[in-house]
């Protein structure tokens, strides 16, 4: 089963080379899910095999220190804009998601799973559980958010006529965590670096903000 999953993942990289704009994760997820459905394999069985790939998210987060270190001067120069953007962006993303969710009448458990949607998956699952949400649902919403962000960030930033790669990358990492960061690294290494910083800072800030914001809204 793991082998089948890897075949799907392999096809992803081939597709990535063929269409640089198509999101590789979406393609790989659809392929793998279709494969699971076709073979009647339960997700649990697949995940047991694929958990090594999933586990690598942790070391990859640690590895973000390397681009951070390489660009330390650039990063230090931008410390104030980063702080302001972090607070504004994190609040804007969380509040808008929760307000829309509430307008659609979602129950509290779904809202709690929705609150950390811009945070990197492992952290978001922890936050959602702490708030009485569903960790697995949170993970799915996180991945969907990341995919949406990764696909929309470039056209959106071009539409806003923002050329500062630091701002574009920071936004991608903040709103769309690892997937936005991966996308930013594809576009520009500097953007990727700022995305990585935003990812780490937002994981931290959201863990603090999510309980406060959710309580204020309910």
């Amino acid at each position, binding site marked *: 089963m793991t082998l089948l999953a890897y075949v799907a*993942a392999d096809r*992803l990289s081939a597709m990535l080379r063929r269409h640089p704009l198509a999101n*590789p994760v979406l393609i*790989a*997820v659809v392929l*793998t*899910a279709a494969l699971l459905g076709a073979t009647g394999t339960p*997700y649990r069985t*697949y*995940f047991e095999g*694929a*958990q090594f790939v999933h586990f690598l998210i942790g*070391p990859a*987060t*640690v*590895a973000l*220190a*390397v*681009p*951070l*270190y390489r660009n*330390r001067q*650039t990063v230090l*120069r931008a410390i*104030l804009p980063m702080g302001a*953007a972090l607070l504004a962006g994190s609040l*804007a*993303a*969380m509040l*808008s998601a929760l307000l*829309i*969710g509430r307008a*659609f009448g979602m129950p509290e458990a*779904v809202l709690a799973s929705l609150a950390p949607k*811009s945070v990197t998956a492992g*952290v978001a699952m922890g936050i959602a559980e702490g708030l009485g949400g569903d960790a*697995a649902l949170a*993970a*799915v*919403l996180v*991945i969907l958010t990341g*995919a*949406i962000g990764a696909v*929309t960030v470039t056209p*959106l930033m071009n539409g806003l006529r923002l050329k*500062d*790669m630091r*701002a574009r990358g*920071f936004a*991608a990492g903040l*709103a769309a965590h*690892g*997937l936005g*960061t*991966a996308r930013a690294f594809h576009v520009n290494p*500097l953007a990727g670096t700022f995305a990585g910083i935003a990812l*780490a800072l937002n*994981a*931290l800030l959201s*863990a603090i903000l999510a309980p406060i914001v959710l309580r204020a809204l309910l």
Partner: protein
Amino acid sequence: MIPGVALILLCQLAGEALAHGTGWPLPGPVLGMILLLALLLANDAWPRPVETGFVTAPAEGLLANLSLLFVPAGVGVVGKLDVLSQYGLGLAVALIASTLIGLAVTALVFAGVARLMAPAGAKGDAA
């Protein structure tokens, strides 16, 4: 390659241990990242710095394939199709709108404050 991977894993382990031990709301890997950054910076302050290529090369290899790592979690979507279809429209609107708002607000505030602060030309290094 192997020593670099070992160092990354060691930083993660230390981060996880610190997170569990102190009960901070910080995730272990984020603490591990801060630790690795501190090590790299401390190495520079050393009179004869260690060559850091052994850790930067595997780190960059890992980051180049970052999106691949999210596939297993993403496939979890198949187990959540009931909730997703029940609140499908609301979730779709909430996710798309909030992601776009989050992206736009973050980038605009960043660019705005950067412009206020640094008229002296500390623009993005890449156009």
